């Protein structure tokens, strides 16, 4: 039997679409779940809204896993013991997608973080149904803070695009602005805490307060972690490393920033409507 | 050969142990014999599968033990067989689940006419409350709990005045009458467990949980705590006496109502206090130092 033609360059590319779609399913599913929860919250007459939501989270994970298994390995129906005449299966280069490993790693990590925040939302929804819940007035500072976080994301996006185009200056500026805005956001959050404490809304006084502090703290910590990566990248660029060598890092930072922005918007929305 | 034999012995031995074991459930004293039946069904179905799998394994180990001149059969899969196995397993599982859910439906449907009794748990003792003449349990709140009012009854709730309080580890239940057992904890999780009743349920502070039973046999039964609740978990004991209705009523009459106990507390002779109650067993005091 003639060996099928195979040139080393003939890597199947289509798998890329699949994987990103799967991850989109996972993330969107989890965040979509969050929207679901807020629906429960507004009509909170339902018994055990958090528990139902938790089931939704669980079910989403089930579906994502099964969908993921299907998409990632459309080969899952392959009969691996049969030879595959005429198919370039041996040229399969071992990758589920052509994404760089770091990008894929980040996406998996984002899925984990999404679960963390989804569970917090579930807990929030469940705890809210108890009679001692007294909603707390959102400090007005959260609005400007949100705006600053958006600016930060935009700046990083700018850095990302510049880095892709190999524009050294743009990347530097974008990164710098993004970092400054991120720090400003964190400072703003601390100020918001200050405001709340000054008006007597202590963490232990009411579960609504406790959740507010917990959620903002966890979100802030994630941003702080991102700032570490941001610092390393920026330092490199400043030390004169060429832009294309840090392009991958810039990409990752930008994606992470956008993700944290989405998380923040969801959480802020949750705080607002309750 | 030896290995196959030992496998067979494990299967046979397990069944023999099951049949000969002197340790088995206590004679039932409630209406939940349905639960016992479901267990028996489950035992039969799973027991057959267990023995069949091990015996088949023993057979394979014996029949297909290594021989130099033989090769294993190369058979990646057998769709038909797998479908059959899936189908049969599903049938078996359904045969256990269906009666299970059927009985659970009864378990969650408390009869309308069920009498009520409240069980209160705290580290590490039980106390009990009956609704009194009006048949309604008065409201409670942890904020009301004081040495004079250990149940935390609402003093202003008229429905609570006639509630009968039993501040000791012994409860009584009338024979053949459905009761809804309401459960309340003052401090941590506990679990009201009477092996002969089969039913049990956690007590959760901040919530009122429940289950229902109809006692079907007179006698005195141990109450155990079945949810780890701290150092004295294993000494958190009580008793339930099931007796005919008339004797039960006579006993109930002798117990103080909430109004009476408050009055007595007012005269400076609280008959309800932690240290003197029967719950204060000796090991418990040691734990409390």
């Amino acid at each position: 039997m003639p060996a099928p033609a195979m040139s080393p360059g003939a890597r199947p590319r289509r798998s890329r679409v699949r994987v990103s779609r799967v991850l989109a399913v996972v993330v969107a599913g989890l965040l979509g779940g969050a929207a679901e929860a807020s629906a429960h919250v507004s009509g909170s007459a339902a018994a055990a809204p958090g528990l139902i939501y938790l089931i939704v989270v669980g079910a989403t994970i089930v579906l994502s896993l099964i969908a993921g298994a299907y998409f990632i390995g459309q080969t899952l129906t392959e009969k691996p013991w049969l030879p595959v005449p005429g198919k370039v299966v041996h040229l399969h280069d071992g990758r589920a997608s052509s994404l760089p490993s770091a990008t894929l790693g980040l996406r998996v990590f984002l899925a984990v973080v999404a679960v963390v925040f989804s569970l917090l939302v579930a807990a929030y929804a469940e705890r809210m149904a108890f009679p001692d819940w007294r909603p707390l007035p959102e400090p007005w500072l959260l609005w400007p803070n949100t705006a600053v976080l958006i600016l930060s994301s935009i700046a990083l996006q700018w850095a990302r695009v510049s880095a892709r185009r190999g524009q050294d200056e743009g990347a530097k500026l974008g990164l710098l602005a993004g970092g400054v805005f991120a720090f400003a956001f964190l400072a703003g959050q601390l100020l918001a805490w200050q405001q709340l404490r000054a008006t007597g809304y202590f963490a232990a006084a009411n579960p609504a307060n406790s959740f507010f502090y917990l959620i903002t703290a966890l979100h802030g910590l994630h941003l702080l972690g991102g700032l570490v990566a941001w610092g390393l990248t920026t330092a490199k660029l400043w030390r004169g490393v060429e832009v294309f060598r840090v392009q991958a890092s810039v990409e990752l930072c930008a994606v992470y920033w956008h993700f944290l922005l989405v998380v923040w918007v969801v959480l802020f929305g949750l705080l607002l409507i309750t | 050969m030896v290995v196959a034999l030992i496998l067979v012995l494990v299967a046979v031995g397990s069944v023999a142990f099951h049949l000969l074991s002197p340790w088995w459930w206590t004679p039932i004293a409630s209406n939940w014999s349905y639960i016992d039946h479901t267990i028996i069904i489950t035992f039969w179905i799973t027991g057959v599968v267990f023995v069949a799998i091990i015996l088949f394994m023993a057979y394979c180990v014996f029949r297909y033990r290594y021989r130099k001149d033989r090769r294993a059969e190369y058979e990646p899969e057998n769709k038909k067989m797998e479908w059959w196995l899936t189908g049969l397993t599903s049938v078996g599982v359904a045969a256990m689940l269906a009666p299970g859910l059927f009985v659970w439906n009864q378990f969650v449907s408390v009869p309308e006419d069920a009498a009520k009794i409240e069980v209160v748990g705290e580290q590490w003792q039980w106390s009990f409350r009956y609704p009194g003449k009006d048949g309604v349990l008065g409201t409670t709140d942890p904020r009301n709990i004081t040495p004079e009012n250990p149940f935390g009854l609402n003093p202003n709730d008229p429905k609570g005045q006639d509630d009968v309080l039993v501040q000791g580890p012994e409860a009584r239940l009338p024979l053949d009458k459905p009761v809804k057992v309401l459960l309340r904890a003052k401090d941590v999780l506990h679990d009201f467990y009477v092996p002969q009743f089969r039913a049990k349920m956690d007590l959760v502070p901040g919530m009122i949980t429940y289950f229902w039973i109809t006692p079907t046999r007179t006698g005195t039964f141990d109450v155990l705590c079945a949810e780890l609740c701290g150092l004295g978990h294993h000494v958190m004991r009580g008793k339930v006496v099931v007796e005919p209705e008339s004797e039960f009523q006579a006993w109930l009459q002798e117990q103080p109502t909430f109004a009476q106990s408050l009055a007595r507390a007012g005269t400076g002779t609280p008959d309800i206090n932690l240290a003197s109650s029967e719950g204060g067993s000796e090991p418990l005091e040691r734990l409390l130092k």
Partner: protein
Amino acid sequence: MAHAAHAETAYVPPAEVPDVELYHPKTFLGKYIWCQDAKVIAIQYAITATAIGLVALVLSWLMRLQLGFPESFSFIDESSYYQFITMHGMIMVIYLLTALFLGGFGNYLIPLMVGARDMVFPYVNMLSYWVYLAAVLVLVASFFAPGGPTGAGWTLYPPQAILQGTPGSGWGIILMLASLALFIIGFTMGGLNYVVTVLQARTRGMTLLRMPLTVWGIFVATILALLAFPALFVGSVMMMLDRLLGTSFFMPAIVEMGERLQYNGGSPLLFQHLFWFFGHPEVYIVALPAFGIVSDLISTHARRNIFGYRMMVWAIVAIGGLSFIVWAHHMYVSGMNPYFGFFFATTTLIIAVPTALKVYNWVLTLWRGNIHLTLPMLFSLAFIITFVNGGITGLFLGNVVVDVPLSDTMFVVAHFHMVMGVAPILVIFGAIYHWYPLITGRMLNEAMGRFHFWVTFLGAYAIYLPMHYLGFLGVPRRYYEMGETMFVPESAHFLNAGMSVVALIVGFAQMVFLFNLAWSAFKGREAGRNPWRATTLEWQTHESPPGHGNWGPALPVVYRWAYAYGVPGAAQDFVPQNLPPDRVATAADVDHEGVRGVAVQPAE
């Protein structure tokens, strides 16, 4: 072209997968301590997990002594007993089994089995181990903290976990929660590696469905862990705040010992939901790697392809998925809305179907095989028995009404020890006997191994089978002593004493095993290459034991699945995954020497 095997394509050039940038150790410390080679990290994980696991083992002896001979040991009082239980359970489940299966076996086997040079993020991988070690140290520190470790049970249920009536409610619980948080962070670092390595670093020809089931099991278990641990993390953080700041996430209004506490309105059940949202998948985090590994052991030692490979893969994925919607079967009597019982009983029993299929396929792999009764095979057989036994009692506990009388009794203890204690540990032993030659180049001593096997298997079975019947009788779990009752007969005390004696004997057998591990490393018989004549890649490395970078100059190329045992027409009864098709019928040189170099120098 006599047979299908020949129809596979002929020579294929090795992959152009860009090699992972390899980390090259320069100093002794860099090679063995601050090492980024997954194989070394695996050993580090394994040693640490075993060390802390030994602590848990000793604790179990102390507990058994107390249960078998109550009132004989004055140094075991109520508080220490409850502390022993808690630490034993937590260590066994998290710090031993999870760490050993994923951090130990995962690190060692994933890169080798998929044909990668290392994990994709070696530095993060190394960090993962050090964070894990920190978690273990914090856990150990709690033994020495004022008040001792927490005694809240491994489930750490609030309110009791942070109240005075429970031992270790001060430092103990705080350190426990901190240690768990660290563990989760460390695991996440490792977990990202395992997942991405499987997805992105497989060698040429290694399609997903050509991966050995070991990799499938560890891969899916890692995904479960990544998605389930966040629940424990969130729960731990919230409980920590309740403990330290006095928030009321889980704490309702409480009157403890006559004193009203400041808490108000919280929900203890919320913690239970979070805990079990993690806790149930955790069972499968331990079980799925065991499923995968045992499949490979059975196939290799029965010289037969695993029966129904695709079904095995689908079942792993299905079980993994379903495990996220069954958690509340641990809460049937927790006081949650009883109507949830219908849902969770149904989902739980549905999981039994794919699980049962896996069991059938293991047994059907033996059928018409050519079975070598080697130590790994013996452990696999024992695994099937204990797993079936424990799975069956799972059907009891999952079926909500049946659970009502049995929950929180010794039946539950017997069940989970059978299914997630004994069964996976038997697989771990089998796996160590199987892969020890790969790691050290020497075989483990057979006589000691057989002694270890029979004592461990029969002993553990003799402990846990009768224990179920104590549960039927109504003996609750987590009891320091049974004390006076009207329903526990005298004979039960003899039974308890007997179980304790057997537990000590089983414990002794583990010492023999540890001795064997040490002794054979120096005195064991030389294993040679591929002593089990296995098909999978880890046995086909350039050097043996595999060296740094795993593969010598070029990566292997994979031509077939991992289960080509007994292929008709092949020269040997096994065809390594990387043996070029044109050599299958003639490869008489594929002997105990393996097929070294076939990927490098193909057609001769």
